[in-house]
């Protein structure tokens, strides 16, 4: 068995590296650079029941080692994703994780029920953490009761395992993780972006037309690592980690924190080859660390038996 192969609910990944939702569209653009077959999986752009135009521009602003975005879940809507985007992706040998968003529980249920029937969709990522839409999104991800309700409702209709994407914009992320686990989530993906803002000195106003936006990029990696370290010790479902991943070293850090697979977001914009470069670099890095299979690293930062082992050497 390949030392990078990872099995998670619904997902048999040839490697644990995948582009994160919203940073890769539906793959068409990046397929001009490399074959998408190389990827472990693809988390495609959030899909809502109806098409959405999203927010006015400017929608992005750079920050120190990061960026803010307020795209606003622009997408062509469920029907076109089913008819055009997912069939196009089926020519690649790569499982799709469909990111599902909505303004009401009914929206989530409608999208989840249908999109989970697509042949190449092997799992859903329930987006209850988008900070850039007025209703829905983050509203579901910051209140435990609604997070429970929407997860449970989607689980009932989905034909594939459901991963819930957690927001870092909460007081107690462990509580949120436990709540969605109890509601039946098969896995977690974390973290979504952190709410932030930049103000233009010339105009005196926020740069983003939406005012606030979601912070991503290397700047947020320590926040994600800390949260995964906490959550992975408190739940029994796997975590796909994300936030500022740029290199194979970053991927290892995520595994040590407690992740079982890792998604790459903003780095795709900086270097379109980030995912294949990381995949290529991982085996040599595992050799360096004296690790045979990447899954051995999951949670090592807090597993006491590993501390004992390492100190006895």
């Amino acid at each position, binding site marked *: 068995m390949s030392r990078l192969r990872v099995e998670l609910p619904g997902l048999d990944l040839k490697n644990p590296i995948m582009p994160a939702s*919203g*940073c*890769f*569209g539906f793959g*068409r*653009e*990046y397929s*001009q*650079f490399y074959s998408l077959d190389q990827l472990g999986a693809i988390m495609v752009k959030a899909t809502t029941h109806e*098409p*959405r*135009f*999203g927010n006015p*521009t*400017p*929608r*992005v*602003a*750079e*920050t*120190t*080692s*990061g*960026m803010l*975005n307020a*795209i606003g879940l*622009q997408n*062509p809507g469920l029907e076109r994703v089913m008819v055009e985007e997912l069939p196009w992706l089926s020519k690649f040998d790569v499982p799709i994780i469909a990111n599902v968003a909505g303004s009401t529980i009914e929206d989530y249920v409608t999208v989840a029920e249908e999109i989970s029937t697509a042949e190449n969709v092997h799992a859903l990522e329930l987006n209850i953490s988008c900070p850039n839409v007025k209703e829905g999104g983050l509203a579901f991800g910051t209140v435990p009761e609604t997070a429970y309700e929407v997860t449970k409702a989607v689980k009932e209709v989905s034909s594939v395992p459901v991963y819930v994407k957690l927001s870092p914009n909460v007081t107690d992320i462990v509580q949120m993780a436990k709540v969605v686990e109890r509601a039946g989530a098969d896995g977690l993906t974390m973290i979504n972006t952190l709410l932030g803002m930049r103000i233009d000195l010339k105009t005196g106003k926020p740069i983003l037309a939406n005012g606030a936006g979601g912070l991503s*990029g*290397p700047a947020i990696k320590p926040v994600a690592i800390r949260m995964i370290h906490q959550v992975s010790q408190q739940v029994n479902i796997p975590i796909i980690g994300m936030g500022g991943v*740029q290199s194979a070293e970053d991927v290892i850090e995520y595994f040590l924190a407690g992740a079982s697979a890792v998604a790459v977001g*903003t780095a*795709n*914009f*900086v*270097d*379109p*080859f980030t995912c294949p470069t990381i995949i290529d670099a991982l085996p040599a890095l595992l050799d360096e660390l004296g690790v045979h299979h990447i899954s051995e690293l999951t949670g090592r930062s807090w597993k006491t038996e590993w501390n004992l082992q390492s100190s006895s050497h």
Partner: protein
Amino acid sequence: MKQLKTELVSQKEIAASIYEAVVFHKEIDESFQPGQFVHVKTGFGSDPLLRRPISICHVEPSKHELTMIYRAEGKGTKVLAEMVPGVEVDLLGPLGNGFPVEKTMEGETALLVGGGIGVPPLYYLSQELTKRGVNVKHVHGFQTSSVVFYEEKFKAYGPVTITTADGTYGEEGFVTNQLDMNADYLFACGPSPMLKALENYQAKKGVYLSLEQRMGCGIGACLACVCHVQGDETGFAYRKVCSDGPVFQAGEVVL
């Protein structure tokens, strides 16, 4: 589109905070068209993080060189301005759709209108139009005399009228006061108030405007740089400035 690790051949400040950089890579060739852009990584670490979209000012296919002119204003372009010849400059390109040079015919007239840092892509355009036998005229607007550049270079292809907002060089005022109303084509690149003012120019064959917008990926994936489509009643139709543009025919998108 490709990712090219180019070599910086030369770089100099040609007007106040306006830099001209020439890069070399063996894959820089005729496929780089006027009006397209390159997405440039400035510096080597994660700060600044994102690439900067910079228009293509000129391409010398035989030498595999590309010239870009930019204003060192924000963090990224200031870092780029510090880079010295010999260093690697990582760029994605050519990106987007440029000006429809192939539509023009020998003997036709084209008016090229540039505003500030929107002037550079018109240089490559002017050269290519001239090669086809199109008669070109230029009207370029700048804020003030210290930021005027490339006047002599453009003169090699056709007459040049310069305007400055403060009247310190050329004609005082804006480009819109200096337009010849008989051109077959109008091609423009500049700030959006200028493009709006030019949108209703009555060229006989077509008006093409190059837009500017903050970008993320530069290749059409992130949807940061979208604009609405004129006449679209659903509100859902859109164009991406990076991959559908940056050049659009006047009337296609909402400016």
